[in-house]
């Protein structure tokens, strides 16, 4: 199969995954609706946090929270991707794909390509919401483009984790059971609150949590400007998540094929 044909296969599987995401509320709601509600509640209820000593200089709490919402949404998109992959395994649709003359990697890449596109949409959605409700994007148009790009890459990286979970467990219930973990990981990072203001041991965990670097990379262009070092740290965080997910996915796929 030529590279062009492989790309078309990945594209076709990606389109199918996107349709699936938008045709079933159980996939769509966690990515757009829940994080939007969470953002509204957080911003409305904890806006005074910006006055705390040590809180970074921001135009408003909404500006600060946008990155948290994007990261949360990207992580939940991975739970959705994993859920739909597990559903494919449970219903036998995966067998249909496995019985076709395509590489096993294409099946996962198709799902991930959809997650990257969803990530771009997430970036557009939250920046749009932010602008509507008075956020300032200090870095301007370039910042908007960078945040959208990083949002897509973050969703893609977490997609690997979702895929690995689905391939390992093969059951929707197990993948969905990971849902609460998303919040634990996020609260132990700088996604919702500046790392400097966290108490120990959360502060120590946040310091080594890649989510902190990803959130900071998404936040910096909004509240200040594009900074090379912060962006690189963000990309490194994304790469770590993607690498862990890839290795885990590969191992889970091998295990699944061996068991078959």
């Amino acid at each position, binding site marked *: 199969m030529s590279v062009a*044909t492989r790309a078309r296969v990945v594209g*076709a599987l990606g389109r199918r995954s996107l*349709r699936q995401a938008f045709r079933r509320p159980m996939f769509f709601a966690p990515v757009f609706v829940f994080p939007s509600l969470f953002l509204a509640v957080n911003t409305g209820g904890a806006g005074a946090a910006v006055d705390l000593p040590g809180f970074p200089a921001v135009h408003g709490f909404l500006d600060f929270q946008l990155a948290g919402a994007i990261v949360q949404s990207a992580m939940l998109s991975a739970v959705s991707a994993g859920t739909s992959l597990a559903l494919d395994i449970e219903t036998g*649709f995966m*067998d*249909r794909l496995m*019985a076709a*003359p395509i590489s096993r990697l294409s099946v996962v890449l198709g799902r991930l390509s959809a997650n990257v596109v969803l990530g771009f949409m997430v970036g557009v959605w939250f920046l749009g919401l932010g602008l509507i409700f008075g956020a300032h994007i200090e870095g301007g148009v370039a910042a908007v483009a960078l945040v959208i790009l990083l949002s897509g890459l973050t969703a893609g990286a977490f997609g690997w984790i979702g895929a690995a979970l689905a391939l390992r467990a093969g059951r929707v219930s197990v993948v969905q059971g990971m849902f609460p973990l998303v919040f634990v990981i996020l609260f132990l990072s700088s996604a919702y609150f500046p790392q400097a203001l966290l108490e120990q041991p959360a502060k120590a965990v946040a310091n080594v949590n890649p989510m902190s670097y990803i959130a900071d990379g998404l936040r910096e262009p909004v509240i200040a400007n594009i900074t090379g070092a912060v962006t690189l740290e963000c990309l490194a965080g994304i790469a770590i998540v993607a690498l862990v997910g890839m290795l885990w996915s590969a191992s889970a796929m091998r295990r699944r094929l061996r068991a078959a």
Partner: protein
Amino acid sequence: MAAISIEGLERRFSDEVLAVAGIDLEVSEGEIYAFLGPNGAGKTTTVRMLVTLLRPTGGRATVAGYDIVSEAARVRATIGVALQEAALDPLMTGRELIQLQATLHGLPAAAARERGDALLERVELDDAADRRVGTYSGGMRRRLDMASALVHEPRVLFLDEPTTGLDPVSRMTIWEEVQKLNREGTTVFLTTQYLEEADQLADRVGIIDRGRITAEGTPGALKAEVGRSHLELGIADGGAAKANDVLARFGELMPAKDGRLCVGLERGAGDLAPIVRALDDAGVAVESLEIMRPTLDDVFVAKTGRHLEGEEGEQAE
């Protein structure tokens, strides 16, 4: 060259579970081969190995000349597969699904659209093509599943219980399509637990039970192995003794069933007219009369000592 060649194929799931216990068979090009057996006999496990979804733990097999383990990708490119319970995405439309399947088999976009449309028309789903699969009936889903297995014009088509759970009309539609495909040159390997399906469709039948093939041959030859046709008669009160005397002249008397007399037929249906005339001449009043032919279930009973699930008794001609 055989379309499917299997030598000692075995699949063990654990020390205790031997799902397929070393089977041997060959399916010729252009043949319809039916694997008949009850639930849990090893039919689906065999198919999953042949379509490369499951690795054998012993033996070897080739499909269209390609080894199912070392040349799995070539096997997948050559075969069409419609697995049990039509695993379709309920959120996709019929058209989307069949075009996706065409893309998976490497067809360019325009060809995928054209081929998809032609197949949807062929299985009479063109009107429902843009509806989501979740709204389809069981028969429609099966037809779509079969159509999607044909997008790349496979040389060998595997159908795993293609009509299980379908109503009689849908079942007939699937049978007609299978026969049509076979006339066009496609080799068909199907599994079924329905006697009638194997009898109607298959050129040859393999009866599988507990992971082993217990009998194999054409439906006619298998049935001939277990016995001849016999006649069952309901005789009016008081006429049984006289009827027995008459029937004994035409063949071996068999034990009566539910008060009905039975006689083996030496010449099959050809014996019927002389028997009726002789009974009439003897003044015996016949209330009912049926020629009973051996069925594949009789073959199954003869080979395994058990009936196929839900398919008991003989079929009246």
